[in-house]
C-alpha cells in the first residue's frame, strides 16, 4: 500500500473530478424527483450503472455545469465543507435543503484500482437514495426554484477567482434567510466513508411548506 499526500499526483484534482461528476448527476436527479422542472425535460440515462434522470434543457444544463465548475477548485483544495441544493418556494424561502457534507483526509492511502470502483459503488448508493427520497418528503408547493450554496472559508474564495468561468458567473455571500431554515425536519439519507472522501447527505425540510 502506498501512502501519498494531497499534493502528490494531483490527487485533489482526481477527487474533485469524481465529486463534481457525482454532484452533477445528483443535482439533475434532485430537480427531477422534487419536480422543480417539468418531467418532460428529463431523459433516462445510466450513471454508476443505475438509471438516472438527466435534463436535456441546454440553459439549465449549462447553469449546473457553470456552478460546479466554480465549486471544483474549492473541492480540489478541500475547502468546500458543504454543497447545498436549496429548493425555494415562490417567495424565495427555502422549503428543502439537500446538504452534501464533504470531508477529505489529509493523507490518502491508495491500495489498488479497486479503490475507484469501490467509490463508484458508494456513490451509486447515494443516487439510489435520492431517487426514492420523495417517499420520505412532503410535496413541495407549486412554482419552486432552486439554487446551490457552498460553505467555504473567506480565504479559499481566491481559488475560485482563478477559474475563467467566474467572470460570467459571479458569486455572492448568501443572506441569512437563504442559509437557515426555521425548525427544519432532518432526514438523513446516506453516509459514505472511503479512502479518498467522506460524505454525508441529509435533507432539511421546512415543517410547513404551504
Amino acid at each position, binding site marked *: 500500500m502506498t501512502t501519498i499526500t494531497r499534493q502528490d499526483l494531483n490527487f485533489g484534482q482526481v477527487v474533485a473530478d469524481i465529486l463534481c461528476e457525482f454532484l452533477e448527476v445528483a443535482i439533475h436527479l434532485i430537480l427531477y424527483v422534487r419536480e*422543480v*422542472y*417539468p418531467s*418532460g*425535460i428529463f431523459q433516462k440515462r445510466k450513471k454508476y450503472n443505475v438509471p438516472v434522470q438527466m435534463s436535456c*434543457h441546454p*440553459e*439549465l444544463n449549462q*447553469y*449546473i455545469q*457553470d*456552478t460546479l465548475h*466554480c465549486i471544483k477548485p474549492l473541492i480540489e483544495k478541500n475547502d468546500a*465543507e458543504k454543497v447545498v441544493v436549496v429548493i425555494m418556494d415562490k417567495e424565495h424561502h427555502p422549503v428543502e435543503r439537500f446538504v452534501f457534507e464533504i470531508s477529505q483526509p489529509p493523507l490518502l492511502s491508495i491500495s489498488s484500482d479497486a479503490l475507484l470502483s469501490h467509490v463508484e459503488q458508494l456513490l451509486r448508493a447515494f443516487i439510489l437514495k435520492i431517487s426514492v427520497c420523495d417517499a420520505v418528503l412532503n410535496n413541495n408547493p407549486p*412554482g*419552486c*426554484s*432552486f*439554487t*446551490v*450554496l*457552498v*460553505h*467555504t*472559508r*473567506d*480565504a479559499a*474564495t481566491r481559488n*475560485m477567482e482563478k477559474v475563467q468561468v467566474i467572470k460570467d*458567473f*459571479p*458569486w*455572492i*455571500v*448568501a443572506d441569512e434567510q*437563504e*442559509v437557515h431554515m426555521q425548525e427544519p425536519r432532518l432526514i438523513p439519507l446516506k453516509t459514505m466513508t472511503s479512502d479518498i472522501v467522506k460524505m454525508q447527505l441529509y435533507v432539511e425540510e421546512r415543517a410547513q411548506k404551504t
Partner: protein
Amino acid sequence: TCKEQAKPNLSSASDKKIVLLPCKNPPSRDRVLLWLQAKKQYENLQKWG
C-alpha cells in the same frame, strides 16, 4: 491591553466561514415549460412535414 484587544485578528478574519451562492438564477420553470412546448411542436412538425 485594551489596544491589543481592539486589534482585529486578520488571519482569522480572512479565514472565517462563509456561504456563497451564484448571482445568476437558473432558468425559471415557466421558461423551461415554454422551451418544452416549442420543442414538442418542432418535433411534431418534423414528423408530419
